């Protein structure tokens, strides 16, 4: 079943290319919804008590190079897969209501991107993971470059160069890992299970760790390597930036949990401190930038930089609580940031600008839109009662147990979040209506996109255990070696 889920989006994308003109918008929407249904079935089918891989697929792919086609889901990836399918369905729906130029190519690229992301979450072979990790960039290059706004070509090139620099180093590092581990494993194998059972020597781990960390930190993005983010977020079409911030950024964090922690435990312990510094710096820097930006997209962009700082903090606290919270927070953040961007798109349509200073008063005649936005805002600032609160709480518990200094600084970030989230809401929805800005209620079509997303936020707030319980066993397994080492 996971095979169908993985390849369905790209097949549907190919169908779009040949579909008759009338159905060119219906096909991708149906395809994305079908993928969503499959993902939901997968979650229902999931055995919450097991840390083992579920629905494993293991086929020989390139035997001469030791690459296998290995897929599977566990407690870490299951909800990220659901998140991917959900956000892609929303993005496809949103795009279908605002048909882009050359829709066939657009929807093909969107489908290819979904397959790439799902592949990265499903892959259980290191090289397959690297392959999907790189593959997902191609469609985003085109999506931003061909359908983006101002300065799209520069932005997309910058994004590609930044992210590929990281992921190509990762390719070299992955190959090196397998070859160094070859005598221990007995054969050339990229299987994550084989490699984590036979960790390589500390000296090799040290440099390989950095190659992987570079790829994942750029992808999130984290502080210092976030240079591509403002341009790309400003230029990308709204649907694309929603999945970019909502899902793609998680692939980096997921990579740490899936690859770095199990495969390079010694290096992880060695560089824990440094990663915590980066995490805290991202939280503070993202928070400060988010409340000084005037472009609405960048407010959301920098806030997600700060949120990913929290997630990194949770992972590198190297405590089960922290990592479990990080998994929850990955899903939470995706659920929050995607509707934020959709709302930003709606607001920009009403205001004719993306400048925060020229917006205002849009709640006047749009109570439903205002209410939806308010829920999203409260979730963003991790209001007690929201799942984001639980996630951040777990992360901070993990961090307090591990490194109290960083936890204290990170707590400041929570206050920043309250400030920038409320600022964004007030400046756009309240105050007087400036000239040129229209207060219009959300249309039924857009409600189709937005309401389910907001409903998910509410549902998760009521029952965050759904994710925490299922993640626990797998997270402990991923952390296995580190936890033992600390104790």
């Amino acid at each position, binding site marked *: 079943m996971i095979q169908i889920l993985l390849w369905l989006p790209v097949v549907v994308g190919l169908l779009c290319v040949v579909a008759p003109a009338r159905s060119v918008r219906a096909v991708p929407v149906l395809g994305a919804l079908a993928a969503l249904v499959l993902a939901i079935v997968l979650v229902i089918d999931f055995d919450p008590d097991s840390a083992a891989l579920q629905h494993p697929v293991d086929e020989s792919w*390139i035997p001469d*190079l030791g690459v296998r086609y290995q897929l599977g889901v566990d407690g870490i990836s299951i909800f990220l897969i659901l998140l991917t399918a959900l956000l892609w369905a929303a993005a496809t729906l949103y795009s279908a209501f605002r048909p882009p130029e050359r829709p066939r190519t657009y929807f093909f690229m969107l489908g290819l991107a979904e397959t790439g992301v799902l592949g990265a979450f499903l892959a259980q072979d290191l090289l397959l993971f690297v392959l999907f990790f790189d593959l997902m960039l191609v469609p985003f290059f085109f999506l931003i470059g*061909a359908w983006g706004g101002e300065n799209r070509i520069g932005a*997309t090139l910058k994004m590609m160069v930044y992210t590929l620099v990281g992921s190509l180093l990762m390719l070299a590092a992955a190959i090196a890992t397998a070859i160094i581990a070859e005598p221990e494993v007995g054969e050339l194998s990229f299987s994550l299970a084989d490699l984590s059972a036979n960790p390589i020597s500390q000296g090799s781990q040290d440099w390989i760790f950095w190659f992987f960390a570079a790829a994942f930190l750029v992808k999130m993005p984290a502080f210092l390597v976030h240079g591509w983010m403002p341009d790309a977020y400003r230029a990308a079409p709204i649907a694309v930036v929603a999945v970019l911030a909502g899902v793609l950024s998680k692939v980096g964090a997921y990579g740490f949990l899936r690859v770095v922690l199990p495969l390079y435990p010694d290096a992880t312990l060695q560089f824990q401190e440094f990663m915590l510094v980066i995490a805290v710096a991202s939280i503070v820097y993202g928070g400060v930038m988010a409340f000084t930006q005037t472009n609405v997209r960048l407010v959301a962009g920098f806030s997600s930089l700060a949120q990913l700082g929290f997630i990194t903090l949770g992972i590198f606290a190297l405590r089960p609580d922290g990592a479990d919270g990080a998994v929850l927070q990955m899903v939470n953040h995706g659920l929050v940031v995607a509707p934020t961007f959709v709302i930003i798109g709606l607001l920009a349509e009403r205001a004719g600008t993306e400048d925060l200073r020229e917006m205002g008063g849009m709640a006047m005649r749009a109570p439903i839109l205002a209410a939806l936005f308010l829920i999203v805002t409260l979730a963003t600032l991790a209001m007690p009662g929201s799942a984001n609160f639980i996630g951040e709480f777990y992360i901070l518990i993990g961090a307090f147990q591990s490194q109290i200094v960083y936890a204290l600084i990170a707590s400041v970030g929570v206050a920043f979040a309250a400030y920038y989230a409320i600022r964004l809401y007030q400046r756009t929805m309240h105050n007087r209506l400036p000239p040129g800005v229209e207060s219009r209620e959300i249309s039924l079509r857009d409600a189709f996109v937005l309401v389910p997303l907001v409903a998910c936020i509410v549902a998760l707030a009521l029952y965050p255990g759904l994710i925490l319980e299922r993640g626990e066993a797998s997270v402990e397994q991923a952390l296995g070696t580190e936890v033992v080492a600390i104790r």
Partner: protein
Amino acid sequence: MSFQAPEIDYAGLSPVIALTAGLCVVLMAGLFEGARQRFVVSALSIVTLATTAGLLIWQWGETEDLVAGALRLDDLGIAISLIAVTAAAFVVPLTLREPAAEERHGDLQALLLCSTLGMVLLAQAQNLIALFVSLELLSVPLYVLCGSSLRRPRSLESGLKYLIVGSVGSATLLYGLAFIYGGSGSTDFTGIRDGIEGGLSDDPLVLIGIGLAATGLAFKASLAPFHQWTPDVYQGAPTPVTAFMSVATKAAAFCVFVRLFEVALGPSVDQWQPALAALAAVSIAVGNIGALGQDSLKRLLGYSGIAQGGYILVGIVVASQTGTEAMVFYLAAYALMNLPAFAVITIRERETPFGDDIRAVQGLGGERPVLAWPLTISMLALAGFPGTAGFIGKLFLIEASVEGDYTWLGVAIVIGTMISLAYYLRVLAAVWMRPAAEAAPGEEVPAIAGGAPEADAHVAPLGTHCLLILVPTVVAAAAVVVFGIYPDPLVDWASNAGEALSPVP
């Protein structure tokens, strides 16, 4: 002393014989004039190449020495010959509308076949003399082909430049071969090997010979720092010829490179390994940096070819079976990904007034998706994106380099790839993200016609000719994707070829 004619196995030699016979027929057919002459000649060329390819495939798996050990028939030679023959067959339809060939179609195609013959022989050469003769057989027709577009001043310049630089390369190589012969006392690869194993691995004569031979071959394979001719010649030569050169010459040159160094000079591996590693690293750096600012697509691909040559050389540096396999795989993948790009450039050269400038492909994504997709796939593959054969090829090479304790070369490939993104993606940005370019005043005439009125008539709508180019282009681009997703057949094929080479001790 009586002369004994060597025993000849005609079955093993049949591809060479077929190619030679076809070459004569094509040359003769070119002498007749007639309305359909061009098609007849091209059809004959294709038939010749198809026959040769068929015979090569028939001989697949055979391993024997031919003509008293001058040639060696093995899977490596056959694999490389197949790449050269396929590239030639791809290029034949491209030349159909080539203005250079209008009057002298038979000559042009005969030269192309002649050069292919040189490549087939070179891929099998196992003797210093056979090596040199076939290398010249390969090169001389190419000098002429490069200068064949008489209406373009650059073409003549290109032909002349190639002739001079190529001769310098040949002379250096010959000098080196003489030293090797002088040192080891044998022209036979196995004889040289025995000689070196007998205590000559530090012999100054042999070492000088190795150095000069490596330099000469580096000229032919356009590896930096012996690459200066490449961009100029690539740009000046008629585009179909450039396409052929970039793919087939490279394959043949690398084949003889690996044979000479790993069979004949195998025992002195410690001496030449660091030198070749440096050559590979320099090529990767120079090629990728040189390509950055290029507006001419042919120059861009020329520099990219230098960089790709550097990657391929890594397969030789590591001197292992995996290395040879990786090299063969990459050469095949390189042919598949480079040819579609050149085909698209050829078509656009004839359709737009921009020649091979990057403006010629601007806005292609909206206007001509049939051309835009193959170009996109080939650029992504050259840049090594997953889902294409280029990715598997790089994976193969990096694995070979790490296995052979040359991890730093693997990292060099990766860094080179990063730099290369900047120019490959620039082409894609032009194709998909920019509007079609407007011709500036005075540029309306396709540059290729050179303003001569009678030449303009040849730049007619492409019609059916276009299909002859488009179908192979699309097929090659599709193959790049197919082998990127299901690489097993090509990997097996390359493994067979790699195993054929006797391993280095």
